[in-house]
């Protein structure tokens, strides 16, 4: 009791809190507990789940969602959504593939052009949002449909079919593949390079959020954009930047798709945007903005990867697959919310 009395005299922000308390207050804690629960569940029910090769498959599945979930989480902390994220991945891959093929250019040129165009799509989303002040849901729903149409339209116009032609025999393909779609063999286990991309993106995003001024801006615009503007936060720039972040990750994912399969189906990617949002939400990002973390989104993606592949390892009837998936995600999120509530009550 004596410490509280003393502390109340001092500034409460300087109050020392124990490590446990501080951990409990973190947004990702609940999702970590959920992840542990899901992991234990499948470790007990699915015998092949614990094999090293299975874990690498699970990690790979998680990373393909996780790479996108990181910037989507930042965007959600900033108070906005991006429904075009799923098809943007495919757009990025299509641009890169078709540019290289049609111009008979080194694949790296296509990769570079794709980066510029994809970032431009992100800027388009951001500028349209900040200029029109319309909800991001509507704006990005519009870009979602436009990109879906452009993907199919341009691919058929340029390639004559609905998928691109293989660029596997072009110059620069091998080196680009090494960067975006290679895998390292550690012991007997394949580690896909996307897992490394994922970890790096999470680390960078966490650093930005917690250690830089930009991180504070993101929390501020998500919490209350008007108040943030009043204290001098560049709201417009922050939001455009967040959309560019999503575009950048879409570019990384898109190049991974392209260089692992060397031909791209123009109709893919639809619906994936929800997986990214789910991963971020399961990981503790609030749908209303202002709260969340990049690590949480990564854990959310991991829960999703474990669940979707665990069901296969457990050899359950696939007719019920989507039901199990939904139930597991709901349970993980409920656990998350429960843990957070308990943590808030204590601190």
């Amino acid at each position, binding site marked *: 009791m004596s410490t509280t009395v003393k502390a109340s005299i001092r500034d409460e922000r300087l109050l020392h809190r124990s490590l446990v308390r501080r951990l409990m207050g973190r947004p990702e804690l609940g999702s970590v507990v959920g992840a542990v629960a899901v992991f234990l569940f499948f470790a007990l029910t699915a015998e*092949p789940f614990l*094999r090293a*090769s*299975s874990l690498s*498959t699970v990690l*790979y*599945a998680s990373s*393909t969602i996780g790479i996108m979930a990181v910037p989507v989480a930042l965007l959600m902390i900033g108070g906005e959504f991006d429904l075009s994220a799923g098809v943007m991945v495919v757009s990025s891959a299509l641009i890169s593939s078709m540019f290289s093929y049609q111009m008979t250019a080194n694949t790296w040129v296509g990769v570079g052009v794709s980066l510029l165009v994809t970032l431009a799509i992100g800027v388009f989303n951001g500028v349209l949002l900040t200029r029109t002040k319309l909800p991001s849901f509507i704006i990005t729903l519009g870009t979602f449909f436009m990109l879906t149409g452009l993907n*199919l339209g341009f691919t*058929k116009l340029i390639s004559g*079919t*609905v*998928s691109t032609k*293989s660029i596997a025999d072009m110059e620069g393909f091998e080196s680009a593949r090494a960067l975006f779609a290679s895998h390292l063999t550690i012991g007997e286990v394949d580690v896909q390079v996307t897992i490394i991309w994922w970890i790096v993106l999470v680390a960078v995003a966490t650093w930005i959020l917690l250690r830089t001024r930009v991180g504070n801006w993101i929390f501020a615009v998500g919490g209350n954009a008007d108040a943030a503007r009043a204290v001098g936060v560049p709201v417009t720039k922050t939001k455009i930047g967040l959309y560019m972040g999503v575009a950048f990750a879409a570019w990384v994912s898109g190049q991974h*798709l392209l260089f*692992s*399969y*060397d*031909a791209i*189906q*123009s*109709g*893919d990617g*639809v*619906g*994936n945007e929800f997986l990214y949002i789910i991963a971020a939400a399961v990981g503790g990002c609030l749908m209303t903005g202002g709260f969340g973390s990049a690590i949480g989104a990564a854990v959310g993606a991991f829960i999703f990867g474990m669940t979707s*592949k665990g069901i*296969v*390892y457990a*050899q359950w009837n*696939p*007719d019920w697959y*989507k039901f199990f998936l939904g139930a597991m995600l709901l349970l993980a999120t409920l656990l998350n919310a429960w843990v957070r509530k308990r943590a808030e009550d204590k601190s």
Partner: protein
Amino acid sequence: MNDPMNDPMDGPMNDPTNNRMNDPMNDPTNRYRSPVTDTWPVGPVPAMRPTQRDQREGQVLVATVRRRGRVRRKGRVASAVLAAALGASLAGCSSTGGLRAEQERAAQTAGGKAAVNTPRWTFAMVTHSGDGDTFWDIVQKGAQQAAVKDNIKFLYGHDEEAQRQSQLVQSYIDQKVDGLIVTLAKPSAMKDVVEKAEKAGIPVITVNSGAAESKAFGALSHIGQDETVAGEAVGDELNKRGRKKALCVLHEQGNVGHEQRCDGAKKTFKGTMEKLYVEGTNMPDVQSSIESKLQADDSIDSVVTLGAPFAATAVKAREQAGSKAEIDTFDLNAQVANGLKDGSLGFAVDQQPYLQGYEAIDLLWLYKYNSDVLGGGKPVLTGPQVITKKDAAALQELTKRGTR
């Protein structure tokens, strides 16, 4: 179907007559058939008016009866409605169709006992099917039947997205299954995992799509239908029937398999053939498009649809347009079998999905047991099988059972 291009088959049609319930493997019990039907009161029970006893009580217990009476009356009304509903449902028993007919059909399907004493191997099948797809349901049934006979543990997974389909294959490799069956609807996406499976010593058989890539990827055999060959069979059949001008109805723009079907038919057909693109996910649009085409050109004497569900729609369009064109179709379902029988359809060309599942399991078993490989490096064709009025009666029962 998200990916129209590489689904040459007719998986995408979500046939309303899809009968998952038909599954012979999980034979439903007869619990819906009540043996006591005769003892139920039939018709509404006259419980609306208070009885004499009520009235007598009412005079004695004036104060309480108001409240209680209302409650009672409510309860009576409810029970009367319930009894009426029960009576109506019992009086309105259907002597045809429904669950009872289905159970009778299920009783006729093959039994479930292993016919071999080989070890219990695990075979997995991964397709590019979407959720709840009739076509793939039939493939699965064939595979399950063969699995029972061959003492195989059969696993099934599907995802319409290429990346996730390949991840599914990977997870079955992780589980060290004894054999794999995959569809190569998106060959480039599946190349890596198919090769990985071979590296892990797991034999692979491709089904349905990927005839061109199957051998190059190192699969044992490919089982499916050659779309061009199937189209050519349609052209021949149209010639035999003396048709002069045909319309080929494509319900998915940009689907390569569909283009091959129409082009194949065009190749062998001696008359002229036109293509008509319709939006397959929008049935009213399909009907009105065919209808207006038939109205615009009354020299069209046959319409070929590329999927079973569209045949019935084309029949409606023909009636509306007052045309005399014959409707023919690719693939088979219960409606098509009925149509063939009653003469509203000319013929159907089937690729026998049951066979694709059944043979895939059987060939894997043969390979494991006896190192046998079928096909000699060429695709094993399950179609086209031309079905006309004379075959329809026999097939009617089979389509209802869900194996054709």
